[in-house]
């Protein structure tokens, strides 16, 4: 397994292309921890935004006008404001207003640290889009199906969980996949609040080793691979959830 680091050292010596990440263990560890943080952010925000989106879509198809208005306001505000400013508003604006706790060594630190605020802010941003996407899926479920569920004695929430939501997800899956891929790309914004994800780790590496071009290429390749993997997973999920008789 020494072949890879040796190859990259020889590449540096012969062409001057310095991929320190592959032959220096410290840089490699930093890069891998950045990747882990990106994956952690992506997975948590995807799951949380799906849950919030489903709940929001449930409320939007419900009877209460007040709750529908609140969900509408949430969707409208979070879709029409920049996610970076939302992130700063949450982390700097709300974070400093929350009470702070004391660590074991007696230092004061806020209750939610920057990773947790990034997860909250990005999940809410993606959930606003998910509410719209789920709503379009729910509207595609024929009203006759819902009436049949009522006739069989399903309560509103039970019908939503067992009948409407499965059908709605299958219908809106392409738009949902697009949104989740965008969410993966949006996790780079956490760089602005010093969350140690891939962009942050590689920037540290190129600040020290002066190999900006090589690390940029690695960064583009990394996100290309991550997006490719996510798209492949989503395509497999789409094929598994395919409704016979629809679309092909």
């Amino acid at each position: 397994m020494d072949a890879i680091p040796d190859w990259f050292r020889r590449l540096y010596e012969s062409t001057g292309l310095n991929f320190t990440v592959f032959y220096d263990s410290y840089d490699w560890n930093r890069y891998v921890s950045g990747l882990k943080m990106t994956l952690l952010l992506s997975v948590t925000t995807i799951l949380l935004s799906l849950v919030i989106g489903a709940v929001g879509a449930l409320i939007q198809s419900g009877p209460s006008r007040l709750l529908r208005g609140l969900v509408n306001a949430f969707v409208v505000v979070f879709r029409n404001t920049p996610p970076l400013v939302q992130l700063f508003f949450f982390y700097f604006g709300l974070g400093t207003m929350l009470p702070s706790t004391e660590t074991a060594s007696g230092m004061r630190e806020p209750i939610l640290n920057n990773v947790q605020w990034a997860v909250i802010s990005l999940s809410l941003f993606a959930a606003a889009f998910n509410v719209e996407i789920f709503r379009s899926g729910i509207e595609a479920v024929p009203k006759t199906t819902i009436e049949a569920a009522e006739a069989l004695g399903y309560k509103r929430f039970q019908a939503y969980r067992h009948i409407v939501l499965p059908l709605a997800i299958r219908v809106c899956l392409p738009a949902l996949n697009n949104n989740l891929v965008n969410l993966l790309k949006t996790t780079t914004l956490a760089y602005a609040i010093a969350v140690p994800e891939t962009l942050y780790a590689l920037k540290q590496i190129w600040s020290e080793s002066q190999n900006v071009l090589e690390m940029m290429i690695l960064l583009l390749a990394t996100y290309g691979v991550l997006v490719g993997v996510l798209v492949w997973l989503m395509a497999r999920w789409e094929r598994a959830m395919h409704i016979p008789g629809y679309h092909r």
Partner: protein
Amino acid sequence: MPVLLPFRPQPQPRSLRPGAACCAFLCVSLLLIVSTASAQGGKAALPVMQIIEKWAPLLLTGFGFNILISALAMLLGTIAGLGLGLGLLSELSVVRRGSWVVTQVFRNAPWLVLLFFVMFLVPFQVTLFGLRIPFPDWIKATVGFALPVMANVAEVVRGAVRSVPSTQWEAAESLAFTRHQIMWRIILPQCIKRMLPPWMNIYCIVAMSTVLASIVGVSEMLTLTAQVHAAEGGRPELFAPLYGFALLCFFLYCYPINLWTAHLERRFQIG
């Protein structure tokens, strides 16, 4: 004997999506409520609205700079995207595959990464024939935003051209139009209407993404907000109002555009 019950149309639930005028009214009333509440409050609450009032002109010039960057990026990106979209539809498979690779690269890369790429790798000035052409950071940021716009516009163009029925192509071919003439005189004019809502959607996304330029050091609204915050003493309770003001500006700019886009989509579906 079965009797036909009288048909009464169910009352459609009215959409609770607020319109532009309603939103402006809500924002103005919110500002008035906050200012009167702070005027009645103690000395600590009073400065917040005054601080926003004092610095609003500066922050709004920053916002105008954001809009300028977004407009230029959209212009560059649309022209380049039109070319790339036509490349995606080319008959030559080399051109088609090359355009596909370029589109995938710039669509799948995060916007911030592309911005870093352009900011760090494009030199700050270029010497051509003895003439020094400076590239200030905001121009590099504009190019950095134009790249993903180009890729998204290329996809929109490709989708719009593919949505034109093939009968149009066949009729044009039977009238002895060349492929170039068909594309420019028959197909693309029909596509303009179809491309407009997704194109406006892309513009809203760019307008909201211009704040990313503050991370790479361009002096736009968000950097000015941070400087205003420092100028007012760096008090932590000022973060929320200042960033709230930035949120408000972008909201009041992008929401009417989105409403108009939805209106155009509905109109073009019927027509």
